């Protein structure tokens, strides 16, 4: 059963620029997939099209039945994108309120997720009182609060320092292992994509197409020791080489 399937998806901007595609992509339920590509290759656009935040120009995107409901997809943006006027708890609770869920179970879930991302003591704090990493954790908790089938992340940790990024990578893997969501993770970091995913989709420069994909057949659960292992270094070398080829491939033309 496919969680997400894209068929010949393209995106052309109003000014005629071809931003994306055509892209064919199938993602299995419970899979962790990274979209890796150079800046401006349209990988974020593809993610937004899957989420329904952008429309494709041609082609179609199909998601599983539950994911089609308003609560079926969680999205984490590049910025934490929290409401500055609301405390952390209200920010995490927002998707529940928007979908009309005022149940005690929902409120329990908010607190449980705050605990999971280590923000229990900061539930009443306002976003500006938090560090960048903590804001991102709040954003993660918010994306998970409706218990979606699919979690889409758009370079969520790109603006964070490396130590914080590593820690959030670990946390994300733990969440994925526990909750078994289908995860699509957009990144321009080879290391991040190798560390996190089961499958890395390498995209070409604009217009973004799928150049190739690479399986990361590393044992799970992955933790800090994987980051320093020889297989990890090997995967990184292979994926880097593919990304290098992809950025000059550009659908037949040389970029």
């Amino acid at each position: 059963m496919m969680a997400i399937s894209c068929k010949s998806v393209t995106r052309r901007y109003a000014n005629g620029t071809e931003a994306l595609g055509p892209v064919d992509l199938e993602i299995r339920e419970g899979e962790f997939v990274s979209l890796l590509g150079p800046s401006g290759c349209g990988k974020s656009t593809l993610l937004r099209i899957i989420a329904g935040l952008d429309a494709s120009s041609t082609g179609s995107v199909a998601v599983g039945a539950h994911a089609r409901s308003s609560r079926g997809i969680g999205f984490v943006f590049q910025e934490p994108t929290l409401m500055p006027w609301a405390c952390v708890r209200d920010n995490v609770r927002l998707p529940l309120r928007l979908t009309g869920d005022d149940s005690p179970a929902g409120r329990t879930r908010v607190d449980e997720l705050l605990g999971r991302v280590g923000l229990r003591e900061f539930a009443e704090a306002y976003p500006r009182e938090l560090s960048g990493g903590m804001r991102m954790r709040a954003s993660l908790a918010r994306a998970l609060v409706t218990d979606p089938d699919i979690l889409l992340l758009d370079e969520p940790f790109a603006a964070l320092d490396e130590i914080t990024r590593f820690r959030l990578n670990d946390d994300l893997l733990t969440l994925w292992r526990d909750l078994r969501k289908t995860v699509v993770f957009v990144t321009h970091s080879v290391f991040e994509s190798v560390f996190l995913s089961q499958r890395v989709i390498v995209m070409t420069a604009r217009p973004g197409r799928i150049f190739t994909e690479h399986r990361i057949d590393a044992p799970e659960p992955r933790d800090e020791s994987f980051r320093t292992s020889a297989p990890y270094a090997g995967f990184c070398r292979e994926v880097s080489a593919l990304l290098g080829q992809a950025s000059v491939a550009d659908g037949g033309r040389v970029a």
Partner: protein
Amino acid sequence: MMGQDREPARAMSQPDRPLPKTLRVLLPVIVFALLMGIWEATVRLRGIPPYILPAPSLIVQTLVKDWGILFASLLTTLRSTLEGFLAAVVGGVGLALLFSRARWVEDAFLPYAVILQVTPVIAIAPLLLVYLPQHLAVVACAWIVAFFPVLSNTLLGLKSVDRNLAGLFTLYDASPAQKLWWLRLPSALPYIMGGLRIAGGLSLIGAVVAEIAAGSAGSGSGLAFRIAEAGYRLDIPRMFAALALLSAAGIVIYAGLSAASYLVLRHWHESAMEGD
């Protein structure tokens, strides 16, 4: 010698160090006292007659002596100001919401809001007094000058909603009402509060302008009318006393709206943060 040279150099290297809080409050008070002192001394030493320039002490005496009539007039003016201000808030925010619904509404009506704003209100006031009952004309003047900053600030605020936050609301199928109350209005709030702070002072100006226009027609009861009336009678001290009351009213309005803005935004907006 060298030690002396170094002192001013170091002082100049930190020109913007904030003053201690007590001094920051005290400083304008000291300046005020100083100016009043100079004024008082000049009037007394030069023997300037009160119908040319009354001394501050005489103005205070007049304020006390005429308190009954001046305070009643102040209340009249404040009432018009408040009504004009509230109408400006409702009208400004309401029009902005209407304008933001559809681009063509803004294109069609914004120019008229601008025309109303750029036409000097002192020129509109006599006309309004012809067509409207006096109190209503005064309120209308206050509204005309005060609504535009609310309108333009609110419009700007409604347009500065975070794009991704808006995307998030779309993702969860938020209703238009949810988007309005939980996203667009809170996003616009810092801008709206900025508009209100400007509008508060302007509605006082609008009310006073209309009262002056009404006063020159020989009727009215507001504080500005008292100024005009006292002017005809060459009662200069009372003119100054009424003016002092108007200034005080303006200061209180501004301070009150600033405090309201701080209370509303203190948790989250940069403008309301304590400098640290």
